[in-house]
């Protein structure tokens, strides 16, 4: 099924035990997130209601990142330095920008550039977060692709060329299908990174998981309970992704034998 590893289940149980362990003392107030009371239930629905946006932002950002990453990686594999240099410039530049400043730049700065160019492209928190996450992550996915593709022997490209395949066909039918098995695990780690970093979207007003937790803390004054639940929410998301990746890897593994 989910194929959760014992260690992950252990983490989940430990988290729940910490919560319930505190529940008898005055430091812990179940009521804020107690599903059996109307207030608690409303709060929980409010908090978990951010799940959709967190997942959507992460998924779209990841899809963009693996696309941009591939486009950035390919020039990095050229044997001509003046093509390769574009890859290096992009990767080194993007990799050195911290996420939060980039988010501010995209959300507050980019629309000004658009306006000065006479374009009316508003950037809402949703797309601001996605663009930032995608670009920031693409520098890493580009490096993952580059390493994965380089690990495929040169003889494969040569053999493909001698049966008349062009560059794009060689990538698509010969190199990427082999490289993907080595690329997938580190790409999955990057996806987990995106999910976690999507919490930054809260600071530009995106009502995803973290923002909702912050808002509820302001009205309920119960940071311990609410942030504990928030952490659990991310933990569950990451566990589901890990399980999905392991399932995918197993499937690919069984394709390989054959």
């Amino acid at each position, binding site marked *: 099924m989910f194929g959760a590893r014992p260690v992950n289940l252990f983490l989940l149980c430990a988290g729940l035990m910490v919560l319930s362990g505190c529940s008898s003392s005055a430091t812990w107030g179940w009521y804020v997130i107690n599903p059996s009371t109307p207030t608690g239930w409303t709060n929980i629905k409010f908090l978990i209601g951010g799940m959709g946006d967190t997942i959507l932002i992460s998924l779209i950002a990841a899809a963009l990142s693996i696309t941009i990453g591939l486009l950035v990686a390919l020039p990095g594999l050229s044997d001509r330095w003046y093509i390769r240099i574009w890859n290096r410039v992009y990767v080194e530049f993007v990799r050195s920008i911290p996420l939060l400043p980039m988010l501010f730049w995209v959300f507050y700065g980019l629309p000004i550039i658009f306006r000065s160019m006479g374009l009316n492209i508003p950037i809402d928190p949703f797309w601001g977060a996605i663009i930032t996450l995608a670009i920031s992550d693409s520098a890493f996915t580009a490096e993952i692709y580059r390493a994965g593709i380089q690990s495929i022997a040169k*003889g494969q490209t040569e053999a493909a060329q001698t049966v008349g395949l062009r*560059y794009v066909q060689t990538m698509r039918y010969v190199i990427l299908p082999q490289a993907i098995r080595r690329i997938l695990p580190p790409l999955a780690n990057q996806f987990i990174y995106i999910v976690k970093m999507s919490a930054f979207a809260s600071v530009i007003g995106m009502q995803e998981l973290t923002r909702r937790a912050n808002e509820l803390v302001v009205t309920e004054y119960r940071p311990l309970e609410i942030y504990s639940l928030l952490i659990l929410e991310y933990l569950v998301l990451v566990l589901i992704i890990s399980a999905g990746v392991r399932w995918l890897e197993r499937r690919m593994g069984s394709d*390989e034998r054959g």
Partner: protein
Amino acid sequence: MAETAIEMVGVNKWFGDFHVLKDINLSVAEGERVVVCGPSGSGKSTVVRCINRLELHQKGAIRINGAQVTERPEDLGGEVGMVFQQFNLFPHLTVLQNLTLGPMKSRGLSRAEAEARARHYLERVRIPEQADKRPAQLSGGQQQRVAIARSLCMEQKVMLFDEPTSALDPEMISEVLDVMVELAEEGMTMIVVTHEMGFARKVADQMVFMDAGEIVETGPPAEFFEAPKSKRCQTFLSQILSH
């Protein structure tokens, strides 16, 4: 007189400062079989790789069927077949898929046409029963025969072999050479880099001996083996024929 299939005129190549090919002149007629030999590092692979554009030369001209070659190997459109020492089969594809990929993607054959052609050539290299296996499940000799069939599926006029049996266990060499002899008998234009002198005597129209980036000696096999003119060639032949 047969048409010229491959012509190299004053070809020079450098790897950085290293002058790897020095004024190579070679003319191969259509249907001709040329065997290239020479010590390791003498530039044999580089000659073959320049012909199919896996390497680019810096000076001189290479013409294939009368047309000047361009920079990119894919512009040859698979006109020149190549069999590598290390087979270089596509490990993620079945034998059949290895054979149909080129014809389907670069020649525009339908799957059915490509598969029919693939099975035909698998028959020719005598492994029709292996069509649905992965390369890793085959022996070295079988893998190299698949590689030959993959190249044949492109139905090129010229085939290059770069030490096709050097990576094989001794007992598998002959099954590959037998297939190559058959191809030669059918009139395929071939350039074969090999140290299998028995094969060379049987099929070669022209022998080429290379040393230190130069073509030192060429000639028909009878003369080449019985009365090599150059000292370097004599030494080389006495070394490889002695074991």
